[in-house]
């Protein structure tokens, strides 16, 4: 059996970090069959996190973030061609050029794309951008280098905040609009988002919260925008940073449990079909996956995290070439990072899976702190600002379901800085302008084909 699994044809749809790491792992695990990686973009796998940082700053060229191979996966790379359909019975993938690609096992790692501005005419104005691909970054970096008078960033999530940070570092005036009460509210909750707001304002960002953009103005060229509070702004560059949309449309007729929240899969990365029946030849990894996590009540998590894409790709690849009892679960604790305004923000666990938060170490005024999140008396997440060395300690507490609020930090033995936890004020994702980068999507796919959920 295991001998068979190491042979045959494997197709990976998606040629970003998850696709590349999965391909490498398949070879690490002894897969000797044919391996094909399909990518929509015409570039070999590249790293996206630097795009909103070093590339926009002009320190690194947009086409210079290509990922290193850990080993050559000896794959056939089909780049610049999109997958447009899946025939799970015939076990083949349809490509945009009309070709069918046969597989024995399939890995879906199609990730996400930037959510575009809803009005197509306004979105087409010269000077209106989104930021997801290296091509997006190249165009936007060029505009920022030309010294615009003002940049409007729509959406105060991580991408929007990092873009605003780059603008200020370049000396460019920037306005950020956020529909929620403060930036990063969807990822960090209301309490820590106040810190994010003060950080932006201290760096000269014109931050408008509780405001939406109602129209982009311009005559061929973007000149400004109108806001829901009746005010207007003049700007020559606009970046739409309204979160990401999962690339699942090509699976609409596949019978898989694919919806806006991603493709549902089990703990071993095997895709579910729309009836909740697990497949054994279709696997999912990265931003496009939603999977049950034991640390978070087995709720289905959708993560848009670099580290999750890598970890999940490796588990999926292992399971694709391993017989049942040797398969592994994907249960890595979610971790993400963002650097903005000179702060290194890192998070472990799921801050939105919380009812309370406490500052366990450091202080807001020092811009060095650890915020610990709890849910019903146990620790579920921690966010560090310029205190990344502590992250691992709190990860251990999350993994062992340690009681919340936490005891004093072991090394500095100081008491909790804030004695009393306060509500973490995690908003309902529906009210957010941009999507949070971690979404708890409940036990049910949106078709509501199963209804068993215990109350309480």
């Amino acid at each position, binding site marked *: 059996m295991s001998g068979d699994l190491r042979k045959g044809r494997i197709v990976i749809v998606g040629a970003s970090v998850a696709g590349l790491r999965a391909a490498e792992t398949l070879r690490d695990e002894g897969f000797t069959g044919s391996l094909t990686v399909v990518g929509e973009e015409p570039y*070999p796998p590249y790293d996206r996190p630097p795009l909103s940082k070093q590339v926009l700053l002009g320190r690194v060229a947009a086409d210079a973030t*290509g990922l*290193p*191979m850990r080993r050559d996966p000896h794959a056939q790379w089909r780049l610049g061609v999109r997958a447009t359909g899946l025939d799970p019975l015939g076990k083949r993938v349809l490509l945009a050029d009309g070709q069918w690609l046969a597989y024995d096992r399939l890995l879906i790692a199609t990730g996400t794309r930037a959510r575009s501005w809803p009005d197509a005419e306004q979105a087409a104005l010269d000077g209106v951008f989104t930021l997801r691909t290296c091509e997006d970054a190249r165009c936007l970096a060029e505009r920022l280098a030309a010294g615009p008078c003002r940049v409007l960033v729509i959406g105060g999530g991580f991408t929007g905040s990092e873009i605003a940070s780059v603008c200020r570092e370049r000396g460019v005036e920037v306005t950020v609009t956020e529909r929620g009460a403060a930036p990063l509210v969807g990822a960090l909750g209301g309490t820590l988002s106040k810190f994010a707001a003060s950080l932006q304002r201290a760096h000269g960002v014109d931050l408008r919260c509780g405001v939406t953009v109602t129209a982009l103005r311009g005559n061929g060229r973007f000149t400004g925008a109108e806001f829901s509070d009746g005010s207007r702004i003049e700007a020559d560059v606009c970046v739409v940073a309204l979160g990401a949309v999962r690339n699942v449309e090509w699976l609409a007729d596949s019978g898989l449990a694919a919806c806006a929240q991603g493709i549902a899969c089990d703990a071993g990365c095997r895709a579910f079909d729309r009836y909740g029946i697990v497949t054994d030849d279709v696997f999912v990894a990265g931003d496009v996956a939603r999977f049950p996590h034991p640390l978070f009540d087995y709720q289905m998590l959708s993560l848009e995290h670099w580290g999750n894409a890598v970890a999940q790709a490796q588990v999926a690849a292992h399971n694709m070439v391993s017989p049942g009892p040797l398969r592994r679960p994907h249960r890595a604790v979610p971790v993400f990072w963002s650097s903005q305004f000179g702060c*290194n923000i890192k998070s472990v666990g799921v801050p939105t899976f919380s009812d309370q938060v406490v500052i366990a170490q450091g202080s807001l005024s020092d811009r060095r702190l650890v915020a610990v999140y709890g849910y019903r008396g146990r620790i579920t997440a921690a966010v560090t600002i310029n205190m990344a060395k502590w992250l691992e300690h709190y990860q251990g507490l999350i993994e062992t379901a340690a009681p919340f609020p936490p005891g004093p930090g072991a090394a500095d033995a100081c008491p909790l800085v804030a004695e009393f936890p306060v509500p973490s004020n995690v908003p309902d994702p529906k009210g957010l302008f941009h999507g949070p980068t971690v979404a708890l999507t409940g036990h049910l796919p949106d078709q509501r084909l199963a209804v068993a959920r215990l109350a309480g």
Partner: protein
Amino acid sequence: MRIVVDLTRCQGYAQCVFLAPEVFELHGEEALRYDPAVPDEQVKRVRQAVAACPVQAIVMGEGVPVDVR
């Protein structure tokens, strides 16, 4: 050669910044920025940085060859 730093793992010890300051730098106290495309004359220094990283967060290797299709 190309590099990628697993910033999930990076804890800002900045050994790489000392060893290859042309390639790695800190933004603020501990946020790492780096040049993913390592110039030839920096490869030796970056190799030292890869070895010295206390959390082994730096991966160096060749990029995926473009010509294949």
